[in-house]
């Protein structure tokens, strides 16, 4: 009952040739993990800082506005958009559509392009460059 399954496991990340499909697939898991562990922790901290008062909010702002903080937030923004577009692709794939080789590859690449563009656009507006 408690013995690990002795079957050989797929060493897919280390052995198979990399392609857009598998890259987007593993990125979906990595970005989802980062959004949950880091992103939701920051969300809880941000809300607590707002509720806590001016001093605690200033503290949050100082850390979030620090270059290292901005890199983390920008990384999370990209993780969000990558997971978002990849997630929408998964919902479409769940209907049984989009498995043709070229179409599947095309939309995998599009999630990568879309996430980079959307990240740039988000920060363009967030920093008020477009206002």
């Amino acid at each position, binding site marked *: *009952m*408690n*013995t*690990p*399954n002795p079957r050989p496991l797929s060493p897919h990340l280390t052995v198979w040739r990399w392609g857009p499909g598998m890259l987007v697939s593993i990125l979906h*898991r990595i970005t*989802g*993990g980062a*959004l*949950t*562990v880091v992103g*939701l*922790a920051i*969300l*809880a901290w941000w*809300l*607590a800082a*707002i*509720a*806590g008062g*001016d001093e605690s*909010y*200033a503290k949050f702002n100082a850390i979030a506005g620090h270059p290292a903080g901005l890199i983390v937030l920008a990384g999370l923004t990209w993780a*969000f958009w990558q997971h*978002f577009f990849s*997630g*929408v692709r*998964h*919902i479409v794939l*769940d209907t049984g559509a989009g498995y043709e080789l070229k179409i599947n590859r095309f939309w995998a690449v599009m999630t990568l392009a879309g996430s980079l563009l959307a990240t740039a656009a*988000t920060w363009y*507006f*967030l920093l008020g460059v477009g206002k």
Partner: protein
Amino acid sequence: MSLGESATPLGKVEGLGSSHHGGHHWLEERFTSVALVLLSLWLIFSLIMLPVLDRQMVGEWLHSAWGAVPMALFIITAFKHGVDGLKVAVDDYVHQDGNRIAIHYLLDMAGIAGAAVSLFALARIAFGAAAA
């Protein structure tokens, strides 16, 4: 467990897969993902639309029902979806039942604790005096 040829199609696949229980969680993760498409876009656009992100502006936004209610829904749905996703990853990489169940349990506790802290903070903002 095998009933051979007499098993129904459902009976043949039940309990298979790395989580050993089936479609309910799979569906639930899709339901929360569809809700999060709307809620996460709402959050991003709300943050962009706020003229500044100082405490007074953010406080006023979350003090109104238009800010507080979707934010509460986002907190609940995002923590649920996040914990569900981490559990799926654990199912794939942790093969010993005892460890797998223990990690699931810890993930549930962490997720519920995180959601409770977030909701409590949101309630203080929403029901507190309007931001000074």
